[in-house]
C-alpha cells in the first residue's frame, strides 16, 4: 500500500494536520526542506523525510532552528522552493535570519511553518507567533482543518514566489495534531537545483543597501495586504444579521460548533479570516458596515481584534467591538469557552453542563515519567549518590528534553529550566555569582543545538561547572529523530558521528570522560571525581553519560520480534523497604499490597540498575538478555 501522504490525485485520505502540511509542500513543488524537531511541528519534516527519495527532493534535520531556517532561506535564494518547520519557541532561535529574509526577499517560494502550542502541552510558553509576522513584515497564514492546511501550504509557494517574499504558515497543536479527510491534488514536477544570481544590493544587508530595502519592504507590505483581499479562505458569510463574528484560523471551527450548539447557525454573520497578518482591510470593512456588534474570536493574543478596532477608528465606523473581554486570552480555546463567549455576545442565557458525578473518588494525577530502563533515571540516581557522598548541595541547571522530568520527585535534580541550551548558558552567570557547585545537565541533541557556544564561553571565561551531557543517542523527546551525534541523517544515510567529548576537548575542557550510566559503580566514581575536580580546581569539566534511549531499543525489539530481558524480585529477600519504587521510581517496579516489590516482565527492559539500588540484593536477573537484544544497543 502506498504511504497515505503519497496517495494519488483525487483521492481523499485521512491525514494528521502535519502530514497535510507536508503533502501541501509536496504539491507546492518543494525541492528543499529543513528543520529541527519540536512538538507540535515534528511530523512535518518526518513525513517529508520518509518520502523524499521517492518524490525527489532534499530533506535534512538541521542542528537547530536558526541553521534550518538559514538553509531553507539559502535554497530559496537560488530559486528552489523550500520549507522549514519549527515549534513556536524555535522561531525565537531562528529570529535573526527570519528578520533579514523579509529585507532581501527570496527567489523560490519560501514557507516557514511555525507550530504554536496554545495551552503549553509540551512547551515553556504559549507565545503567539503571529506577532513575528507583524514584527518582521512577513505575512501569516492559518487554516482551520487539515484539508485547508494542505491547500493553503500548496498555494503559498506560488504566493511567496510572486512577491519574492517569505511567508509564515502558522499552525497550532490542535491543527498539527488533529486528523481529518484531505482531498489530494496533483504532485507536480519540481526544481531541486537553482542558480545564485550575484546582486549585492539585494543579498548583502550592509546599511546602505538595507536602508533602501527597508523602504521597499514597507511598500511591499501594503501590496501584500491588498492581494490578501482575494485570498480564497477568507470568507464573509452575510446572513443579514446585525451581529458579526470574526473568527481567525482554528477558531472558525469552534465558532461553527458553538453556533450549532446554540441553534444560531446562519443567524449571525461570520467573517472567516485565515490571513491575520496583514489583515486585509476591504473584507473587514464590508463586515463592519453590515454590523452593529462585532465579536472577534481568536486564540491567545488580540491581533486581529486590535487591527479591527484600529480600522473602525480610522474609518469612523461606530460600533461595538468585543474580543478578549469575552474570549479568554490565556490557554487554548475549546468548544465550551467559545460557546460561553458567543452566548454572552448574543445575550443568550447559557448554562454549561453540570458534572454528573456524586461519589468522591480521589483521582491521582498522572505526571509523565522516565520510561522503564531510561538511562536518565540511572544518571539522576547516580548523580544524587555522588553529590551526597561528597556532601555537596549543587545547583542543577537543567535544560529542555526528556531529562527535564528530573525536576519531579523522587529526583528533583533540575533547579532551572528555561530554554534550549540554557543549562550551560545560565550556569555561566551563576558560576561567577554563587558559591554552590554548579551542574549543567543537557541532552545530546540539545548540546549540539545550543550548548556548544555556552561551553566555549565557560572555558574562555573560566566558569567552573560540571557539564553532564545525557547522551541517549537520539533526539528522544520529540519522537526519536537523528542528530549530529547519531551517525545518521534524516533520510537514513550514514554520516560522520560527532562526539560531544571530543568537542569539549577541542574547545579546551581539560577534564572530560564518557561513562555508561547502566554501569552504576563506575559512573558514580567518575561523577565524584569530576565534581571534586570542579570544586577544587575551579574549572569546567564535562562528562558524557552515554547509553541509548531504552524506549527506542524496546520499540525496535518489538518491531523485530526480539524478546526483552527482565529482572525479578526474590520474595524472601525483599523486606518491603520501598527504596526501589519510592526513590528510584521505575514504572516497571510496582508495590504489592504487602509492600514488597514486583517487576512487570512485559515492560522491564532488564537494565539491571534497580538490582544495584536494592539494599538487600533481592533483585536478580529473571530472563537474561539475548544476543540479539544486546546487539540492538550498539
Amino acid at each position, binding site marked *: *500500500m502506498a504511504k497515505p501522504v503519497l496517495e494519488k490525485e483525487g483521492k481523499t485520505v485521512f491525514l494528521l494536520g502535519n502530514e497535510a502540511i507536508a503533502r501541501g509542500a509536496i504539491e507546492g513543488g518543494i525541492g528543499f526542506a529543513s528543520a529541527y524537531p519540536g512538538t507540535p511541528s515534528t511530523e512535518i519534516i518526518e513525513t517529508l523525510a520518509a518520502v523524499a527519495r521517492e518524490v525527489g527532493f532534499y530533506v535534512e534535520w538541521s542542528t537547530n532552528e536558526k541553521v534550518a531556517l538559514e538553509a531553507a532561506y539559502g535554497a530559496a535564494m537560488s530559486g528552489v522552493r523550500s520549507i522549514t518547520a519549527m515549534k513556536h519557541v524555535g522561531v525565537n532561535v531562528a529570529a535573526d535570519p527570519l528578520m533579514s529574509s523579509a529585507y532581501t526577499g527570496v527567489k523560490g517560494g519560501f514557507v516557514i511553518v511555525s507550530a504554536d502550542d496554545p495551552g503549553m502541552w*509540551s512547551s515553556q510558553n504559549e507565545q503567539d507567533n503571529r506577532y513575528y509576522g507583524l514584527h518582521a513584515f512577513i505575512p501569516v497564514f492559518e487554516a482551520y482543518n487539515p484539508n485547508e492546511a494542505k491547500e493553503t501550504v500548496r498555494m503559498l509557494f506560488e504566493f511567496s514566489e510572486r512577491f519574492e517574499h517569505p511567508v509564515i504558515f502558522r499552525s497550532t497543536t490542535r491543527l498539527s495534531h488533529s486528523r481529518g479527510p484531505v482531498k489530494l491534488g496533483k504532485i507536480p514536477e519540481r526544481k531541486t537545483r537553482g542558480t545564485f544570481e550575484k546582486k549585492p544590493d539585494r543579498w548583502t544587508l550592509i546599511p546602505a543597501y538595507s536602508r533602501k530595502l527597508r523602504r521597499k519592504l514597507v511598500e511591499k507590505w501594503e501590496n501584500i495586504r491588498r492581494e490578501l483581499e482575494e485570498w480564497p479562505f477568507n470568507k464573509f458569510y452575510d446572513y443579514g444579521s446585525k451581529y458579526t463574528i470574526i473568527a481567525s484560523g482554528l477558531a472558525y471551527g*469552534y465558532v461553527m460548533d458553538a453556533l450549532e450548539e446554540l441553534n444560531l447557525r446562519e443567524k449571525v454573520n461570520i467573517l472567516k479570516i485565515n490571513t491575520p497578518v496583514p489583515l486585509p482591510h476591504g473584507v473587514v470593512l464590508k463586515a463592519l458596515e453590515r454590523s452593529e456588534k462585532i465579536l472577534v474570536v481568536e486564540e491567545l493574543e488580540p491581533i486581529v481584534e486590535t487591527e479591527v478596532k484600529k480600522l473602525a477608528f480610522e474609518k469612523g465606523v461606530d460600533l461595538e467591538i468585543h474580543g478578549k473581554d469575552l474570549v479568554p486570552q490565556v490557554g487554548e480555546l475549546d*468548544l*465550551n469557552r467559545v460557546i460561553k463567549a458567543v452566548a454572552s455576545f448574543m445575550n443568550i442565557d447559557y448554562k454549561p453542563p453540570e458534572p*454528573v458525578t456524586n461519589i468522591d473518588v480521589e483521582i491521582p494525577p498522572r505526571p509523565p515519567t522516565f520510561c522503564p530502563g531510561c538511562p536518565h533515571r540511572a544518571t539522576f540516581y547516580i548523580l544524587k549518590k555522588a553529590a551526597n557522598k561528597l556532601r555537596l548541595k549543587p545547583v542543577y541547571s537543567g535544560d529542555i528534553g526528556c531529562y527535564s522530568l528530573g525536576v519531579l520527585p523522587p529526583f528533583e535534580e533540575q533547579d532551572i529550566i528555561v530554554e534550549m541550551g540554557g543549562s550551560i548558558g545560565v550556569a555561566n552567570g551563576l558560576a561567577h555569582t554563587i558559591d554552590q557547585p554548579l551542574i549543567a545537565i543537557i541532552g545530546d541533541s540539545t548540546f549540539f543545538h545550543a550548548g556548544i557556544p555556552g561551553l566555549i564561553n565557560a572555558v574562555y571565561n573560566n566558569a567552573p561547572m560540571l557539564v553532564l551531557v545525557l547522551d541517549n543517542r537520539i533526539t528522544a523527546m520529540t519522537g526519536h529523530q537523528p542528530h549530529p551525534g547519531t551517525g545518521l541523517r534524516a533520510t537514513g544515510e550514514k554520516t560522520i558521528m560527532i562526539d560531544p567529548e571530543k568537542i569539549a576537548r577541542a574547545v579546551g575542557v581539560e577534564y572530560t570522560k564518557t561513562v555508561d550510566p547502566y554501569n552504576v559503580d563506575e559512573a558514580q566514581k567518575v561523577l565524584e571525581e569530576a565534581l571534586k575536580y570542579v570544586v577544587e580546581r575551579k574549572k569546567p569539566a564535562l562528562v558524557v553519560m552515554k547509553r541509548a534511549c531504552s524506549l527506542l531499543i524496546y520499540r525496535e525489539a518489538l518491531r523485530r520480534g526480539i524478546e526483552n530481558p527482565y529482572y525479578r524480585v526474590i520474595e524472601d529477600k525483599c523486606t518491603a523497604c520501598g527504596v526501589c519504587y519510592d526513590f528510584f521510581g521505575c514504572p516497571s517496579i510496582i*508495590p504489592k499490597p504487602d509492600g514488597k516489590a514486583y517487576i512487570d516482565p512485559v515492560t522491564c527492559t532488564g537494565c539491571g540498575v534497580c538490582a544495584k539500588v536494592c539494599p538487600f540484593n533481592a533483585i536478580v536477573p529473571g530472563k537474561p538478555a539475548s544476543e540479539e537484544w544486546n546487539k540492538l544497543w550498539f
Partner: protein
Amino acid sequence: MNEYNIVIASVGGQGGLTLSRIIGQAALLKGYRVRIGETLGMSQRGGIVQSYVRIGDTVESPIVGEGEADAILGLEPVEALRAARRYANNNTLIIVNTEPIHTITTIAGREKYPPLLDILDELRTISQNMIAINATEYAKNKGLPYSTNVVVLAVFASKTNIMEPEYYIKGIKTFVRRLTKENIELFNDVLRNVNKIMTMFSQ
C-alpha cells in the same frame, strides 16, 4: 449522519491514539465526515493521552465539548473516570478496561490509586450504560499483550451500530502495522464471543 462523539482515554503506550485512528479511518471509509483531535502532551512517558473522534456532517472542531461524549473508551480505569467526569452525560456508553496502570505518584506512595470498585461505581453513577471488562487480560491470554485497544474496539463495535465490523477491520489494516492478521483475528473473536467474554471478564 448525526453527530457522534467518542473520547478515548488512555496512558501513553497503550495504543489509545492508534484506536482513534482506526475508528476515524473506518468512519472515513464508511463515508462519514470525521475529525480527530489528539492530546499527546508527554504521551510517550507514561502520561495521559486523550483523543477525540468526532463523526457527523456538522462537526468542525477537533475537541469534544464537556458532557458531549456519546461514547468513552477507557483503556485504563482512572483515565476512564477522569474523562467521564468531563465528557460523559447520563446516556454516554462507557467501556472501561479494568486493568489499572499505576501512576508514578501511586507507585511512590505519594498518592493512592483508588479501589477499582469505587471507580466502577462512580462510572455507573454517571451512566448506567457502562461496560467493565478486563481487556488487557483477555488480550494477554490470546498472546497479544499490547492489544487491549483492539479488544475494547471490538466490544464498542458490537454495542453500537454506527458502522459494520468490516470498516473497523479496514481501519486495523491501515493503522496496526505489527501482527495485523492476529489483531484482526482477535477483533473477530471478541465480536463473536462478546457476551461470553463480558460475563467471564467483567467486574
